[in-house]
């Protein structure tokens, strides 16, 4: 039982990490109806920019390496980079495609993926970098000593960050003017434009916020596994989360993440050995597929009804 609980807790905490990436998808989908294929590449670009600035600031400007000033300045510069990327995406990719079918916008984001991946490596190089956030990825001592259950401090920290982000985004969407405008744009571009909502500004805002989420997700994943190209693969973990939670729901991303995280870990431990192991990669997709048959809009997604 103790082992089961440990696997379950570990899975739930991993699920929160997936949800962090899924949030970026949800934001852009909510505001523009676009499934942003480039979200994984944005996570990579954001994290690489952060560690890149951390290297550049001490080397070029004589700042003290590893200092809080370098950390926060790098964070701000990386965020600014993501804002510029968001504005450029709106100006160059999205604006010419207003009112085009969603599949066109989706295809455009596939192209954007390659551009962002290439841009990241061209700007900062291909070297793998380590990233320390000052939180050790080690079990909490008293839980381990008293109950024999290993729960990572780092995973708890990541869960806290994700919870804060969700609360912040929920407030943004529900209680601010920008949030209401975002939802209006998501419902219908033309209708939103007709009542004076500045579509371009809204898109820029939402891409900038998605860039911020990508930066936070990239830093957490980067601190865990290193800042490297594989950060783009985190998007693969987010897809089943989105299918389960719904593409338009911020809390859905979290709930979906928890379900996917827990179920894939339990499946790997208890079902994996029966089928040769390594099922973690495809099990969430099987689960998402089964879920699609029952509830295509996801747990918290908006039900779409077409009148014929």
């Amino acid at each position, binding site marked *: 039982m103790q082992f089961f609980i440990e696997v379950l807790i570990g899975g739930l905490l*991993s699920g929160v990490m997936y949800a962090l990436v899924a949030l970026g998808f949800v934001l852009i989908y909510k505001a523009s109806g676009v499934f942003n294929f480039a979200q994984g590449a944005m996570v990579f670009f954001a994290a690489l920019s952060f560690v890149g600035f951390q290297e550049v600031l001490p080397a070029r400007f004589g700042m003290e390496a590893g200092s809080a000033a370098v950390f926060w300045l790098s964070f701000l510069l990386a965020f600014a980079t993501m804002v510029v990327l968001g504005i450029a995406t709106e100006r160059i990719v999205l604006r010419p495609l207003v009112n085009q079918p969603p599949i066109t916008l989706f295809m455009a984001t596939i192209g954007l993926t390659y551009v962002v991946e*290439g841009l990241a490596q061209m700007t900062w190089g291909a070297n*793998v970098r380590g990233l320390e956030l000052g939180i050790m990825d080690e079990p909490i001592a008293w839980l381990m000593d008293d109950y024999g259950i290993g729960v990572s401090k780092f995973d708890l920290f990541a869960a806290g960050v994700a919870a804060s982000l969700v609360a912040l985004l929920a407030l943004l969407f529900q209680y601010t003017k920008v949030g209401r405008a975002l939802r209006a744009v998501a419902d219908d571009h033309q209708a939103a434009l007709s009542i004076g909502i500045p579509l371009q500004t809204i898109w820029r805002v939402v891409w900038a916020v998605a860039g911020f989420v990508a930066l936070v997700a990239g830093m957490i994943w980067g601190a865990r596994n290193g*800042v*490297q190209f594989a950060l783009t693969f985190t998007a693969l973990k987010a897809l089943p989360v989105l299918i389960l939670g719904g593409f338009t729901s911020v809390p859905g991303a979290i709930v979906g993440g928890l379900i996917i995280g827990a179920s894939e870990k339990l499946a790997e431990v208890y079902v994996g050995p029966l089928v*040769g192991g*390594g099922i973690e*990669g495809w099990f969430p997709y099987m689960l998402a597929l089964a879920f699609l048959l029952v509830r295509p809009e996801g747990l918290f997604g908006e039900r779409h009804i077409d009148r014929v």
Partner: protein
Amino acid sequence: MKLKRTVLLGAALAGLLASSVAGAAEEQFIGLPSYRVGPYASGGSGVFGGWIDYMQLINERDGGINGVRLTWEECETEYNNARGVECYERLKKKGSTGNTVFQPVSTGITYSVLDKAAQDKIPVVTIGYGRTDAADGRVFPWVFPLITTYWSQASAIVNFIGTKEGGMDKLKGRKIGLLYHDSAYGKESHAVLDRLAAKHGFELSKIAVAHPGNEQQSQWLQLRQLKPDYVILWGWGVMNPTALKAAAKVGYPREKMIGVWWSGAEEDTIPAGPAAKGFIAAGFNVAGANYPVVADIKKFVYGKGKGNMEDKARIGSVYYNRGVVHGLITVEAIRKAQEKFGKGKALTGEQVRWGFENLNLDDARLKALGATGFLPSLKISCADHEGPGVVKFQQWDGSQWKVISDWVESDRPLVRGMIEESAAAYAKEKGIKPRDCSKEG
């Protein structure tokens, strides 16, 4: 008169042309299917940087191989099979004698070009990857998995563990976990490790990690339950630092984790931070810039501003040195082939194939090359396209790799037996008649 002048002018022009051709140095072309962008760019930039630097060294310091200057062209594959094949086709007719040798640095691309290369008479050299049974040169005359293979490596790791335990007989009853990348590459060791487990009486637990391997919590919880004495890490890319961090999380000692050569580079340990300290990995080349061959590269190549590495701090890293090994072996094979087919001449792929098959880098030659201990001595033959099948072990001390063993051998009779068995099955399936090596010159 006019005719006479035209004839004289023509003769003079022809003479000028002939003398310029005679005066031009011969060039040997080497096509490089590199990957400097994409998922594996960090490793690729090191390997191809070291490789190009070595060839540049031969040109700058020695004026080429017996006067034949090396030329090369990179073709970006992004580690993608389709692009690799495209690069193979694009490069094969370049240079005055075509591409000398194709070294894909990718098992997938190797499989894709094996048949084509044999038809085009271009040797395929696969150092540290590719199909293991290609070490049987009787069945695979055009393929050279030089130095060592995955099977030899797996066996050498078991021998290393045996040494640490105080003898192979001490392995009986021990538990060894194999944490492997769930792919053909990761499963490559299964057969040989199963046989070794049966032979030495240790218990082998295989635990798969789904690609890309950035989540390993469940695998390490299983390992914690199994309590293995050692864990062999057969990883790739992000799977390696993730494994080291996950091991630290469950309190598994890194000193008991032994990685393969695709798990044992700076790119695998630096992202894991302090969690990587103590981790051991096998390698057919070692890290370090204190070898004369690397010192010469710094002096003759970087000293003239012709180095390939943007980040000079990576000179001497595991991947960089691996690239130097690729360059060194390629150059020595060409040199050997020139002894037979003519010094100072550009050679065809077919001629260079002979050079690989008769390569003999003994200790004296390695010393002359400034590479003693940098790579093992190796002697290739018609039947044996592998060579010594040995690896060294290095340990990460928190900031760099330190060599902790001499060259460790594999269970040669067992491994060679399996290679011949597998190659014979392949030959039967494909209707290949193995060469009679006693008739090869």
